[in-house]
């Protein structure tokens, strides 16, 4: 496609002021060529790519997201589709294999020529597909909370950035619970490491927390022997100051962690654990007894008491045919992302990628918690932040929430390198990492980032 060739060229030049005119030319050519084929294509369905692992370790989390998008497509088709065309799902299975994500993404964009892709869970898989989406000029809606420090022209981040999850959560612990000592425990990969770096800087800057009152701990994926760490946490928390654990422990490792906490007699009332990766879906495979009273920070809980949420849950139960089916935060993110994309398609009158990229900024759709989500110029959305306490039925009881929605910040204000960066994909800036102190755009580094992420 012309647009993609221009993009490659502009990356070689790296002169930002060249880009708008090039893009305009590209858009012109694209729309012109579309004009000819539109008639013929009117009967063809709009293709929606789904890039979620259906096998391998991440299948546990990602399978339901595939089902969610399929359900949303079905609902949209029942309402007559989009632009008079039906929607068709194209499902591929990247099998929890990060390099395979890039191959499958290429397959979706080049071979199936999908109009939009909903997909990915882990950060490393997102980094792996970034260069593909930028090269082939695709659209990716990414539904999971992540570490920030990224803004790609082709990616829309409908999950939470750090300032939409971890920072408000820490504020809650400090202001409402009175926590003075902090354990930052996480699985050893990019999301926990970046989040904990941000949190450490934030705790020291904002609350003046001393070094000895912060304990940072990383564990490998699927860690199952928590005896020593829990014992350390117990000792750390018995110094007379209120202590809390801020947990970015991922996936399967959570169950043995909470069980060990309960067995060693660490109670939520003494040392609460606030998790960023434990949601309703994760709780379905767990005996929730040991977890009761521990906390989680998300932008959506299944227990939220709104009509639109109940409608969504009913639709989901009908779709899955499972009376016990649960909904969770990334599902809501896909719900928002899908509706935003549909709205942008209606607004632009076409599924053309460049037209959608322009049209979607500022699009506002209802979220499931009774408010609205708006797409910001940095490709992040506005979200409320909720803190929930785990109940013994596997649901969360919302104990606190931000008074209004928070706009996602791609570049954290608490990290030295990213403090000066902003992202704005509107004309004339069109830059994901504009440095306000030097006044220049860093340009896309997707290829290098993907290489670095996959090398790990």
């Amino acid at each position, binding site marked *: 496609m012309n647009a993609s060739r221009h993009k490659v060229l502009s990356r070689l030049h790296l002169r930002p002021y060249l880009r708008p005119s090039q893009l305009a030319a590209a858009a012109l050519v694209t729309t012109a060529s579309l004009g000819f084929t539109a008639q013929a294509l009117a009967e063809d369905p709009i293709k929606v790519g789904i890039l979620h692992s259906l096998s391998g370790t991440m299948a546990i989390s990602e399978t339901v997201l595939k089902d969610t998008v399929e359900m949303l497509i079905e609902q949209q088709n029942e309402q007559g589709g989009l632009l008079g065309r039906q929607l068709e799902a194209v499902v591929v299975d990247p099998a929890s294999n990060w390099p395979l994500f890039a191959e499958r993404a290429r397959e979706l964009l080049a071979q199936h020529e999908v109009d939009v892709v909903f997909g990915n869970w882990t950060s490393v898989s997102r980094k792996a597909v970034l260069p593909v989406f930028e090269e082939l000029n695709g659209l990716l809606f990414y539904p999971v909370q992540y570490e920030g420090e990224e803004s790609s022209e082709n990616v829309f981040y409908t999950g939470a950035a750090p300032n939409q999850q971890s920072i408000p959560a820490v504020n809650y612990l400090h202001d409402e619970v009175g926590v003075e000592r902090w354990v930052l425990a996480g699985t050893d990969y990019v999301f926990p490491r970046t989040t904990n770096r941000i949190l450490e800087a934030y705790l020291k800057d904002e609350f003046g927390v001393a070094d000895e009152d912060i304990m940072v701990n990383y*564990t490998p994926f*699927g*860690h*199952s022997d928590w*005896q020593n760490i829990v014992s*350390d946490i117990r000792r750390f928390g018995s110094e007379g100051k209120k202590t809390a654990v801020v947990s970015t422990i991922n996936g*399967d490792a959570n169950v043995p962690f909470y069980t060990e906490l309960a067995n060693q007699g660490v109670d939520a009332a003494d040392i609460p654990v606030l998790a960023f990766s434990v949601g309703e879906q994760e709780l379905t495979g767990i005996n929730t007894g040991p977890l*009761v009273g521990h906390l989680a920070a998300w932008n959506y809980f299944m227990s939220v008491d709104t009509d639109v949420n109940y409608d969504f849950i009913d639709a989901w139960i009908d779709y899955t045919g499972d009376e016990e089916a649960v909904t969770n935060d990334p599902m809501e993110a896909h719900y928002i992302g899908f509706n935003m994309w549909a709205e942008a398609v209606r607004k632009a009158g076409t599924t053309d990628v460049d037209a959608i990229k322009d049209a979607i900024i500022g699009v506002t759709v209802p979220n499931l918690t009774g408010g609205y989500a708006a797409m910001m110029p940095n490709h992040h959305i506005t979200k409320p932040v909720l803190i929930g306490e785990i*109940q013994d039925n596997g649901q969360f009881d919302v104990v606190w929430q931000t008074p209004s929605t928070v706009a996602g910040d791609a570049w954290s204000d608490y990290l030295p390198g990213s403090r000066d960066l902003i992202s704005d994909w509107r004309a004339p800036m069109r830059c994901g990492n504009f440095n306000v102190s030097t006044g220049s755009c860093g340009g896309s580094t997707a290829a290098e980032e993907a290489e670095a992420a996959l090398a790990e």
Partner: protein
Amino acid sequence: MRIFPLTPSATAEASAGSAAGRSCRCLALLILLISLCLMVGTAQAESLDADDNAAALDLLEALDVASYPAKGKAIDAIVQSDDPRARDWLSALLDGRLQRTDDGRFVVVLDNRGRDWPVEDALSGESLGEMSRRELDRIGINNALRNQLRSAIAVVDLYSADLALRRASAERLLGEVDADLAEPLAGVIEREEDRRVRARLVQALAIHRLEQGEVDAVADLQGSLHPRVRVALARAASGAIESRAASGAIESRAVMGDDSVVADAAQAALNSIEQNLRINRGLETLYFGLSLGSVLVLAAIGLAITFGVMGVINMAHGELIMLGAYTTWAMQQLLPGQPGLALILSIPAGFLVAALAGIAIERGVIQFLKGRPLETLLATFGISLILQQLVRTGISPLNRTVITPEWMSGSLVINDALSLTLNRMYVLGFTLVVFAALMLIMRRTRLGLEVRAVTQNRAMARSMGIRATRVDIMTFALGSGVAGLAGVALSQLTNVGPNLGQNYIIDSFMVVVFGGVGNLWGTLVAGLSLGVINQILEPWAGAVLAKIIVLVFIILFIQKRPRGLFPQKGRAAEG
């Protein structure tokens, strides 16, 4: 005025009740006054159950509000009420079992599993049969309220006739005693017969006295390993108590200690405590190491038979473990409400399932690949992927809930600084039993003799009349069955999901190679020592680095001694 019905002494209760929520003491007093007035008012009308229930309903009604602070006040009101059901309400509220039906009645849920729950009326206590959970709304609480409730219940339980309750209560009160509670507490200590409760209460009181600057309180705290005692002593030692004693209005102190005297005494007590803690910490690490080691041994010992004795590289070993874990889950589904029995029955069932799967693998694939290790490795790796995906599509990609029976949760308390988690202790014991049984089979039975004969010299054994093929099947079935047993045990420690096996396959090979291929003793020693090394390294190296260090250590060790810790000797080793 009676605060709680369970108490023998009226004066004790009045102050006990108001001590429940320290932060809400003023409020509690206010409520006390109000309720006193109300009581005087209604005293003449000495009324019937109906009135009583109406008042009780009002108390509960106040709980059903959205705001947590308001709920806190409602809890105080219940604490101050004269109602004999107060403790039941509070503990039901604490457990989330105090709920409200759609038609506004308050009920206590007796069992909240499944869709329909048996309930009883919170006011009359009469059983209402089963109700759908959709008809019930829980009265939610948060951590602050949970703390408040626990303290309130602890004060009530201090007068309970049930020893277990008194023990829990005394435990809870450590570090929570204030001036209001101190006086009645002294009386309680005098009357208390149980030594443990008494010792605990003395310590609880001593912490309070230490905070008031009494130097002889240190003697009561001497030697205690409880973290709250340590915190109190550390504060006293650092001199934090002095300022409070100086500024506070404490004239009635019996023994007015000099500030520095208090600090010195506390410091001395603290030093001996720290010494003691270090020893306990060492013991704790040892236990952690042995328990991790026992998991490694259990996962590896089946492999020690199939790989070590038979020489088959079975990459699907992890999935056989997974099958054992899923058997436990299936048994618990078959026997709902009896997780303990299901777990015990899973031991033979898990063995059988995994052994049958092992026979299928041996007959279906491995027998055709005898003497071709690379092909065996690839084929069994393929089987492992197939089994994983079968579980994923056949059962669910999600983890399954395996319930830990009551008698396996919690921990065995040795002292305040050392407690051993029960589930791991059972696994440790189970490992030793399985190991002993395997040793017996290999050393004392005909099967063991034949296995050893076939592995040492296949051709010779066959010419002596041993059916080598049958021995192959039996050995592989035995190794696989033991993997199934490991799965049953692991279901109590970690997730039961399709990936369970993957997490243990590398560790299993590591243990077998390190211990010496073909040697069961080697596997035991290697597993336990790797566990202990790992746990000693972990506190200062971190979990990730500890794992890497252990791996590097094994690589270096294998370079030096390629046949592992206990190499096979003699002609058998050459084959």
